[in-house]
């Protein structure tokens, strides 16, 4: 009976040691994984490596008028900058030139979202028609 109890104790000790060792190895493995999860080596650039990024940013229109739009954007565009954009409404794209008038943080959303006011720089017949269509079918406070 005493031997059985001793064996059981040894067994439990062995089990708990194995369990501890397995857990310890997992932690080390996890720490290594967290320290650098990259599969490929990464090189810090010493000095200058200048470049250019070309991207198209999508902004959501909150309000629109014949003069311009107020839009929600995750990029704080430079005030005064002009952009050649596509205005999309119900799968219809209309090209337009806009100038950024003001940028402010959107207090209703997490940091990193901005309310950007754009004014149209000249407006084509196509754009005026689209704006008119947007305004006549609007009126709902439903957010976009």
């Amino acid at each position: 009976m005493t031997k059985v109890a001793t064996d059981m104790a040894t067994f439990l000790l062995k089990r708990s040691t194995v369990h501890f060792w397995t857990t310890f190895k997992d932690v080390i493995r996890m720490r290594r994984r967290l320290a650098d999860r990259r599969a490929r080596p990464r090189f810090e650039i010493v000095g200058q490596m200048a470049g250019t990024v070309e991207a198209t940013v999508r902004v959501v229109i909150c309000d629109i008028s014949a003069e311009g739009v107020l839009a929600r954007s995750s990029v704080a565009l430079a005030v005064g900058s002009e952009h050649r954009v596509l205005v999309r409404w119900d799968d219809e794209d209309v090209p337009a030139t806009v100038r950024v008038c003001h940028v402010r943080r959107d207090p209703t959303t997490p940091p990193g979202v901005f309310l950007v006011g754009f004014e149209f720089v000249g407006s084509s017949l196509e754009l005026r028609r689209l704006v008119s269509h947007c305004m006549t079918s609007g009126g709902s406070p439903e957010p976009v």
Partner: protein
Amino acid sequence: MRGSAEMHVPLKLPVRVLDISLTGALVSCDLPLPVGARGKLLASAPDGRLGAGFYVSRRKVEMTATGGTFGAAFVDLDENNQKCLEHFLRRASE
């Protein structure tokens, strides 16, 4: 407004590459792009011009100053740009 209205704004931004690997780069920029945005990075490497399509995997915006950094994960690297990048990284690791 009822319905879905949006604008697509093409941007061309000067950036600085802070570090780079075969799979992506950390880029510093005055207007850090949002997570998920896609674009093209053009940079001058010693062996030629590097052009790589990417998507933004993470972004860090500076709260006290303008600008920030974003992680660009490369996608659709063509053979020439892949070779250019490999050569550049091989030289960097020597």
